[in-house]
């Protein structure tokens, strides 16, 4: 943080978080999202939805986009728009559109006689809890934009 910044500016949450592609590093998301939610007085439901969708989006990138390969970058950028909080997630993984992905192969055939569904939950949850989702194929990566309305 440059020393010339005022106290008020220093208290503002960082608009960008970069993590490495390890599931353990997703723990860094929580406090970052909390500080943004606090600053923008996001309702509890919006806060929950952001935590949920970002955890799903980033764990998808770690497990599927990068195929479990550690040490690859994931950038999350925050911006606010009127009445909504917007998060943009970028990676350098092979083309992977989660919105076109059924996710069924996440879960092998469940044991006979038990049909508790497990596969494909990440994208199902993101569709339900994000206000909107957008995918862009980049030259060398992927961009997912998640928008969360401030009122449910």
């Amino acid at each position, binding site marked *: 943080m440059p020393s010339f910044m005022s106290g008020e500016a220093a208290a503002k949450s960082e608009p960008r978080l970069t993590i490495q592609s390890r*599931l*353990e590093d*997703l*723990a860094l998301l*929580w406090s970052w999202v909390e500080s943004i939610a606090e600053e923008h007085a996001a309702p*509890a*439901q919006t806060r*929950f*939805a952001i*935590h*949920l969708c970002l*955890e*799903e989006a980033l*764990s998808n990138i770690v497990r599927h986009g990068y195929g479990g390969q550690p040490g690859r970058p994931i950038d999350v950028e925050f911006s606010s728009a009127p009445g909504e909080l917007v998060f943009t997630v970028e990676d350098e993984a092979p083309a992977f559109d989660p919105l076109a992905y059924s996710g069924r192969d996440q879960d092998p055939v*469940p*044991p006979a*006689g*038990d*049909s*508790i*569904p*497990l596969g494909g*939950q*990440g994208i*199902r*949850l993101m569709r*339900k*809890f994000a206000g909107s989702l957008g995918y862009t194929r980049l030259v060398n990566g992927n961009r997912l934009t998640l928008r969360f309305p401030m009122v449910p």
Partner: protein
Amino acid sequence: MQISTEELTDGITKVALDGRLDIAGAAAVDLKMNVVAGSAQKLLIDLQNVTFLGSMGLRSIVLPARAVHSRGGKVVLFAPGEMVESVLKTSGIDAMLPIHHDLAAAIAALQ
């Protein structure tokens, strides 16, 4: 993330989860959940103090529940908060793991 177990009447095992069932929370409870599910025949999973549930957390509930079901046992989910319940319903697991908000009803469903 905290996990505690309690033996109720009629052979019912209550396992209470407390905290955030995010990726780290799921990893923290998986072993204990699997141990509990390895012997319980009637399992009540108390979610009232679970403040967050993601898809990795869902696995921590579903996989042990499958183990109990595979032995012919029963599992119910008790008292999830509004957003946690919404995650359970969106995922569809409430069709196999009934959700109860009344303890007497939850216990009755395990008989």
